[in-house]
């Protein structure tokens, strides 16, 4: 179906370009400077909470091909000053090379339900980014796993999981659900574990109860092939999040990149003086042995 639409759009584009290449001209670009990018998701359920600081890559500039396009590592700020506060206590968080970010242990700076946290990041170049978030008061509801269908297909095992949870009464609750298994990645000759998320055939990864108060939210995963080296564990995560967490992830979930025929889709941000997200959640994890 999309192919047909794309073909017809191609036809439209053909009409656009029939007028020949000199109908494409340079135009003056708007000023584009680097911005500070701050990301942090804090939770009382974490052993540590991490803030990550990067720099955006401005367009309309010239760079050397020999140096390569500025990559992930070159845009990371490792010498920023990251200050987290609950209004009474304040902590300046150091950069941790192991964790690729500014990380503080729960024991050193506890995140507490119902508390508002303020983040202030300063970085060389005169950058100042600020944000705040409030940890939801409630704990996430229980997830009810309604079925785990497992099939053996010529030695390959597939699973399909369905489940549901009931929204907490009253509006203002937002949820994030993830289901997955541990997979392996061969890295420098060693098998290394990583979490592999399983997509949903039905249901939403991120949902708000704005129009669905006190309802059951159900989900069903796609059939998922378990690799032979997998551990036989399924993980289900249900997070009760603040609204910024929901808006940001919903936008990321829908993000489709640039398309001249569609309206641009900026990603939600709650960082003043930069872009990114600073949000809070409470999370419940279920581990199921297969």
């Amino acid at each position, binding site marked *: 179906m999309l192919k047909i639409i794309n*073909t017809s759009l191609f036809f439209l584009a053909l009409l656009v370009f029939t007028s020949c290449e000199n109908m494409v001209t340079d135009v003056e670009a708007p000023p584009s400077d680097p911005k500070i990018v701050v990301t942090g998701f804090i939770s009382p359920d974490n052993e540590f909470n991490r803030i990550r600081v990067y720099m955006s890559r401005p367009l309309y*500039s010239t760079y050397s091909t020999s140096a390569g396009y500025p990559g992930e590592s070159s845009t990371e700020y490792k010498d920023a000053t990251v200050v987290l506060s609950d209004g009474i206590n304040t902590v300046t968080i150091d950069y941790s090379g192991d964790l690729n970010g500014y990380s503080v242990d729960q024991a050193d700076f506890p995140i507490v339900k119902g508390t508002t946290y303020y983040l202030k990041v300063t970085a060389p170049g005169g950058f100042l980014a600020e944000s705040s978030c409030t940890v939801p008061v409630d704990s996430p509801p229980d997830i009810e796993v309604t079925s785990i269908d497992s099939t053996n297909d010529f030695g390959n095992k597939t699973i399909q999981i369905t489940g549901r949870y009931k929204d907490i009464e009253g509006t203002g609750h937002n949820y994030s659900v993830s289901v997955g298994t541990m997979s392996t990645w061969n890295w420098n000759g060693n098998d290394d574990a*990583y979490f592999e998320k399983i997509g949903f055939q039905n249901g939403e990864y991120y949902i708000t109860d704005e129009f669905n108060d006190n309802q059951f939210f159900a989900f069903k995963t796609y059939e998922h092939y378990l690799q032979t080296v997998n551990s036989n564990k399924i993980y289900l995560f249900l997070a009760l999040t603040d609204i910024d967490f929901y808006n940001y992830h919903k936008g990321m979930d829908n993000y489709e990149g640039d398309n001249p025929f569609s309206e641009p889709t900026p990603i939600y941000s709650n960082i003043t003086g930069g872009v990114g997200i600073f949000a809070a959640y409470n999370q419940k994890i279920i581990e199921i042995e297969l």
Partner: protein
Amino acid sequence: MQNQSEKALLNFRSLLIKRPTLTTFTTLLTFTLILFIALPISAFSQKKYSISGYVREKESRELLPGVNIYLPNLKVGTITNNYGFYSIVLPEGVYEVVYSFVGYDHVVQSIELKANKLVDVELTGITLQEVVISGEKGQRISESTDMSMISLPVQQIKQLPSLLGEKDVFKALQLLPGVQKGSEGNSGIYVRGGGPDQNLIILDDAPVYNASHLFGFFSIFNGDALKSVELIKGGFPARYGGRLSSVIEMTMKDGNKQKFSGEAGIGLISSRLVLEGPIKKNVSSFIVSGRRTYIDALIRPFMTREERAGYYFYDLNAKVNYDIGPKDRVYLSGYFGRDKFNVVTKYGDNEREEGGLYWQNATATARWNHLFGSRVFSNTSLIYSQYTLSIYNYTKENQNAYTLKYSSGIRDLSAKYDLEYNASPFYHLKTGFSLTNHMFAPRAIVERDDANQVYKNDKTNYESLEGGVYLENNLTFSENLKANAGVRLSTFVADNKNYMALEPRFVMNLRLMNNLSVKAGYAEMNQYIHLLSNTGIGLPTDLWVPSTTRVEPQHSKQISAGIAKDFTDSDVTVTVEGYYKLSDKILGYKPGASFLALDDPTEAEAFTWEDNVTAGSGTSYGAEFLIHKKTGKLNGWVGYTLSWTKLKFDELNFGKEFWARYDRRHDISVVAIYNIKPSINFSATWVYGTGNAITLPLGDYPAITHNPLEGSGIPTGSSPWNPYFNYVTDYGEMNSSRMKPYHRLDFAFQFIKIRERYQRTWEVGFYNAYNRKNPFFYFIDEEYDNNTVTTKLKQVSIFPVIPSVTYSIKF
């Protein structure tokens, strides 16, 4: 009773000078009701009679709407309605009555009024040889209670230069002040900051839902079958409702009642034919008009047998009418148009794949005009309108066939009743109601898979009911003060939710001196149906949806004020108008919203468009200036608009106000039609507009999503691969950049020759005559030079200078 009506007038005058309060509306309603009861009775209480009848064009006996009927001695008058009927009530006496209309010789009749009198009048069209101005040409704009309303003579539209020679009503409307076009070449219309979905487009009483051909480059109205085109931008009369920004009303011709005649034309991309004539002379007539493009036929020789693609559109208008007697007349009219794009691929003898999309509009209207006595005119309409988009895919491999068809659309069934009552020269009432059953079909899937025995036919339909009752009072308080005060009660029932709203409408005209008046108007509008656009450029995949419990109706309030001046000697009108419009609950799209519902159309999941929209508000204000000359050797207009349009959504642009995409600070149109000699016409248009507001990428950045394992204590190893790390585009604030300004000159020559049995016209035109590279869209490009890469912003233009030739005959 006389005292009662005087009291009502006093109440009303005091109302005008008072600051509007919450009780203003109640007072207005009371006043309206008193007038409704009192004035007609007071009118009956004196010895008065009516002059009424129909005004027709002499040659074809086509009924003429908008003809001015004026009594110079009394300085009162009226105009014919959409069906060419007029009625005026006067005391016994002898009157001189002048009938005048743009493009026609005026007629003066002396009438002795001793009883109700039926006076049908025929006006003779001014021929090309007689383009001299004489006397009155139509209703003086300074005397009318219409405001923010422009009627464009169809003949003027047909003389304008056009893209590829295709005459287009909507592109002519885009040349008027207060009306912005969308992107280059697009026929979408943006009125006073409103979107194209906020225009009520009516063809013979039927709403048209997708008025574009060829992905928006042409509108479906070519002017051949049209009698009149009228645009209302504010001060909406109460008879109209259902959209926020404008009313574009088009009336189809009735067909020549005297003789068989026609018109045919051949252009670069399409041909057209109009045939009209009497079914029974002077009693009944018909008109049929058709147009079809032949791009598909022209490119076919260049394609292989194995792979073929094609595109065409056609449209067809038809109308018949029948005079049952002096008091009854019926009309049947319809429109059908379709665009189709398809691709066929053959793989050997036994395998074939075909896919395509088509979209089509169909409207049908049955109307019955009836006269109750000589003063009351009624019209009953039954209306059908449907818009459908279909995308299909068909594959055949040996004996197995696979078909997948996706459709969406909207279907309306309406009943409408309008009544006009001429109580006196000072009071004219219009009232009526309409009821529409909308059926929205956002998604219908048909799947046939012979190989896997899958047969699916899923449909999702939503029905709703929209209703409106209105009352319009045209009041003449004195020679210098007139008003049109009305109210509309609109309702909408859908999704177990009932919306109801009272919409006050008011226009006042205060004449300051001869031919100069000040006008002011106020209108509230509600829009119960919404258009979801995937692209914002008006593709046929855009989807109409109803208001629901979650998505409330859109609402607007608009005040407008201005001056109108007629220069009768030169037949020039000048209007200057300012407006301020507040819109509420207008729809915006959440970041990443998609309404195509086509990624996997066979998916059983419900269509959840409500999750993807967000409500906000809009503010538009500006000033419009128009000098319009409708007739004469040199005619045309100059329009200038200075305007601002801002939007605000809690969920967009971080809650901050931003410019609408089609916010345009300056917009200029110069339109000139010059009859060099009877056999040669020259026409030219020049337009200028501030560039569209756009959101440009400023850079990109890593947008990291939440990893549910982070900090959870579950060992995840040390893999550098991170599925939660994506680069996204940084756009900065919404619509904070501007495209380059748009300007363009078009011109055309028409060479006319009158032969014994027909008249032929050659038209040679140039679109974008000085080859301006106007922006269509911007994109980012990378330029490599030795060891460096430079990222640049590029502009794509689509139309260079485009010449066109068309040939037409009229017989």
